[in-house]
């Protein structure tokens, strides 16, 4: 790990002034991903600002009936929060499908959104990676790419976003509240993470120095018909090869609303509204789910080792929607 200076921020103003003193500084909250990357010399900040004392520690009701998840609440406390379990079980299930209990006790909601890819080329400083070192090339394109993306890739990067939580947030249509030196703003979840394009070093649309303060869940949480399916190489404590978060709202035997978000397949949680709209108003049945899956996978492209994800994702979507229907 490189050497760095360290400050504890007592309030938000403190955090910004501490952070602004260096171009290579980082905020630290749970630190589980950042410190791991620092040990690998992938992240080399020269200054850390500890934000754990900032007032983003609560889960509470919003005026619109939705729920606000504080950025500093741990993943475990979020997953086991009674309101989250009751009204947003998709969120609980997704969080509990990821990491280990020890990591979930430390990792925060804000940090979960900002975790970096687990692409092996990103992690290995001896190999090229445009995300870690812009312009150095992408090792995965012509290399080992079994875990890599099939949607929204570019010639510069085929990495995936590793979060489970974010897949459920994308499905629900959450919003991310942030604050920065130039004020507060709210970002729609689908606009929070980026596709790699020609700047894969940027994972999100946060401005420099901005902090995630909370995540807002909409009033309706698809608590009646939902499913998070995670497919991975071992049954626990592994990243998704493909995951699907699905929610169905059934009214009078028809699909009134539906959400389908995929993880492990793109640089951000992948949602296809065209497929969702196709299902709305129809009778929930396997043939309709298969058509939606076909439509979603129409845009998929494999890179050799990860070609299997295309058929796997298709089957996973149908299975997840079927299980959501019967949940």
């Amino acid at each position, binding site marked *: 790990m490189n050497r760095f200076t360290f400050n504890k921020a007592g309030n938000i103003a403190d955090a910004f002034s501490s952070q602004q003193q*260096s171009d290579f500084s980082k905020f*630290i909250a749970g630190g589980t991903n950042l410190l*791991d990357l620092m040990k690998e010399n992938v992240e080399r900040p020269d200054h850390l600002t500890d934000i754990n004392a900032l007032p983003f520690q609560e889960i509470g009701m919003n005026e619109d009936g939705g729920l606000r998840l504080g950025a500093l609440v741990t993943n475990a406390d979020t997953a086991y929060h009674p309101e989250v379990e009751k009204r947003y079980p998709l969120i609980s299930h997704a969080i509990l499908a990821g990491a280990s209990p*020890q990591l979930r006790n430390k990792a925060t909601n804000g940090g979960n959104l900002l975790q970096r890819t687990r692409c092996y080329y990103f992690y290995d400083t001896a190999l090229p990676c445009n995300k870690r070192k812009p312009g150095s090339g992408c090792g995965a394109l012509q290399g080992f790419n079994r875990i890599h993306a099939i949607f929204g890739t570019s010639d510069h990067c085929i990495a995936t976003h590793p979060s489970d939580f974010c897949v459920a947030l994308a499905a629900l249509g959450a919003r991310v509240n942030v604050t920065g030196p130039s004020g507060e703003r709210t970002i729609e979840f689908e606009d929070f993470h980026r596709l790699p394009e020609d700047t894969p070093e940027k994972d999100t649309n946060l401005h420099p120095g901005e902090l995630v303060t909370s995540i807002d869940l909409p009033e309706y949480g698809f608590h009646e018909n939902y499913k998070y399916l995670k497919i991975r190489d071992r049954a626990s404590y592994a990243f998704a090869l493909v995951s699907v978060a699905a929610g169905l709202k059934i009214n009078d035997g028809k699909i009134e609303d539906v959400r389908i978000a995929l993880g492990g397949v793109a640089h951000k949680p992948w949602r296809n509204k065209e497929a969702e709209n196709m299902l709305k108003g129809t009778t929930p049945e396997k043939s309709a789910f298969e058509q939606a899956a076909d439509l979603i996978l129409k845009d998929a492209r494999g890179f050799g080792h990860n070609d299997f994800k295309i058929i796997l994702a298709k089957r996973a979507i149908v299975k997840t929607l079927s299980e959501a229907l019967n949940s």
Partner: protein
Amino acid sequence: MEQATLLGTHESTAIKLSINGKDHSLNVEPWVVLLDALREYLSLTGTKKGCDHGQCGACTVLINGKRINSCLTLAVMHEGDEITTIEGIGSSDNLHPLQQAFIDHDAFQCGYCTPGQICSAIGLLSENKVKTTADIRELMSGNLCRCGAYQNIVAAIKQVKGNIAE
């Protein structure tokens, strides 16, 4: 880096950590993780270093009663917390029920992962989410045992947890 030295703590600072109910004063650099502070600065070597990346669970300790990986957190971030390591759990003539259960079920071979397994299992029991044996397996998945004593580790935890379904 010259500018960086002006920003804050770069050299070692004096901190106080409360470990197993006792205050310890030490000087650490900001980049020292809690695991290294315990082992290298305080000679509390019961907590083990395995992967050093949060994947194996050998370094598991309890912070304010919650299990975490001590390799992935900075020592300077834990002033004011109550840290519990394996040294604070039971004693040779008064074992913690989990320690006794690990002996009863031969839940280790080399023993290197055991302090982390026990601290993790204590966290697991206090979280109170276990209803089945499968839950124990899932909620202990952050602790690896290279000797493969998993069956016996699950049996030991089951003994302490009491009546649970398969």
